[in-house]
């Protein structure tokens, strides 16, 4: 009972982004989906939380088809999933602490004190102690990503979805984020799906890597298997070789 995508198709107008993508996540693992920018990785993630509905195929989360859920059931489902957005998507008008508390405020039985405690905890987990009263605009790129992560984990989700967590960060900050992703897996035991085009990061955090190409899962394997794969397109992507990737 985890996350499963079965033959998902999705098109935006004439542009077919997903053409029968299939993937099954194992409980507790951190999987990565890699692929070039604009290949539909983020689209894939949005299907998991019901922000998008597949044109064909089914997305299962805990055995339930996300596309067929009613609004209230979808709300329940979303409480089990933490979503870390590409640019953090923090609410500009609120402090970091308020951002983190957003998901908690809607939970029954959470009073002010309990929320404040949990916010402190989460900020501690992402090493943002003491920055709770700042506004997003006052944070650096890495700090914002961490704040976004803190917000995603606040409600103790079962699943964590990372959308390009290291995009636009310097190598040191990237590695800080990668370590955080691993810490989430180890300390919180969440099942995570990381979408990235950063192979270094993918190799570092993922138990399994899926290569998304042409709207389908072209290759799935452990980082070691990816490194040694014979597929030219995958090798071209991993090594950053356009000649191989485009088959020139």
């Amino acid at each position, binding site marked *: 009972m985890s996350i499963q995508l079965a033959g998902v198709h999705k098109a935006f107008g004439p542009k077919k982004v997903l053409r029968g993508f299939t993937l099954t996540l194992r409980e507790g693992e951190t999987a990565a989906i890699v692929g070039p920018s604009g290949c539909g990785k983020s689209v894939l993630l*949005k299907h998991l*939380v*019901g*922000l998008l509905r597949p044109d064909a195929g089914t997305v299962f989360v805990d055995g339930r088809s996300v596309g067929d859920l009613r*609004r209230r059931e979808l*709300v329940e489902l*979303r*409480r089990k*999933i*933490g*979503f870390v*957005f*590409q*640019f953090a*998507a*923090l*609410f*500009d008008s609120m402090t970091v602490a308020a951002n983190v508390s*957003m*998901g908690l405020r*809607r939970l029954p039985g959470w009073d002010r004190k309990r929320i404040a405690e949990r916010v402190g905890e989460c900020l501690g987990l992402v090493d943002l102690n003491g920055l709770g009263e700042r506004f997003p605009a006052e944070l650096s790129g890495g700090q914002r990503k961490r704040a976004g992560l803190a*917000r*995603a984990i606040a*409600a103790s989700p079962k699943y964590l979805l990372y959308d390009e967590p290291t995009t636009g960060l310097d190598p040191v900050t990237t590695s800080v984020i990668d370590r955080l992703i691993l810490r989430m897996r180890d300390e919180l035991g969440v099942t995570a799906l990381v979408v990235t085009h950063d192979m270094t990061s993918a190799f570092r955090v993922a138990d399994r890597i899926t290569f998304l190409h042409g709207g389908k899962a072209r290759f799935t394997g452990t980082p070691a298997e990816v490194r040694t794969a014979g597929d030219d397109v995958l090798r071209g992507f991993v090594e950053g070789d356009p000649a191989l990737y485009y088959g020139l």
Partner: protein
Amino acid sequence: MVLFPVTVPLSRPLAASGRSTLAALGSIGQASALFAGSVRALRDIGVWGPLLLPQMARVGVASVPIALFIAMFTGIVMSLQASYTLTGTIPLYFVGTMVGKTMILELGPVLTGLTLAGRVGANISAELGTMRVTEQVDALETLAYNPIAYLVVPRTLAGILMFPFVVLLAIAMGIMSGWLTALQLLDMSSPEFIKGLRLFFEPWDVWFAVVKSVSFGAVVTGIGCFCGLQTDQGAEGVGRSATRTVVVSSMIILCLDAFWAAVLL
């Protein structure tokens, strides 16, 4: 596919008009969906309730100065132009009638509505557009919030609740400034102006203004939310949404103005 020899020169404009018709119908459909969603989202009072007051402050209170400013000059201009128009056979106290009637029935609500379409509508649109393109709207959804309840309902409700008050203040300001102008520049006396003001006054006029401004408030904020949430393609899209909000809501305000005049007067 060459059905007629004229296909080529004609097809482009035909296709263009067909496309825009479909787009317009699509927009109407989406707007209706947003409206239905907003009505449903009214149940989530826990979500929008705490946000209502800040939005009322933003939509209503912050709009008062600009609305008063516009109304003040409208009143002055109305007074001067009325006296210019009425020179001759019609007694000057009709300046009061014209200033009062036009401010209450037409200029107060409509000018305030148009001004706030620019101020409030564009603001909401840009804000929500930015939230849309930076995925904050998606973030709301993933945090189990209904974005309509969280973003649209408090803004639209604030517009509906606050617009009438802003408009009433603007009307009062317009009449006051028209009155002062009549006293200072037109050599009229206060009793004269007041006589004209009261001559054809009906309490219903004020209700008419309130009804109009409620609808304008809903339109300005609703269109702002709608265009904002429809935003795509980054900063440029945000700008486009803001412009569209102002244009569309101004048009709808004027159409509604005619509609209310036909239905209620």
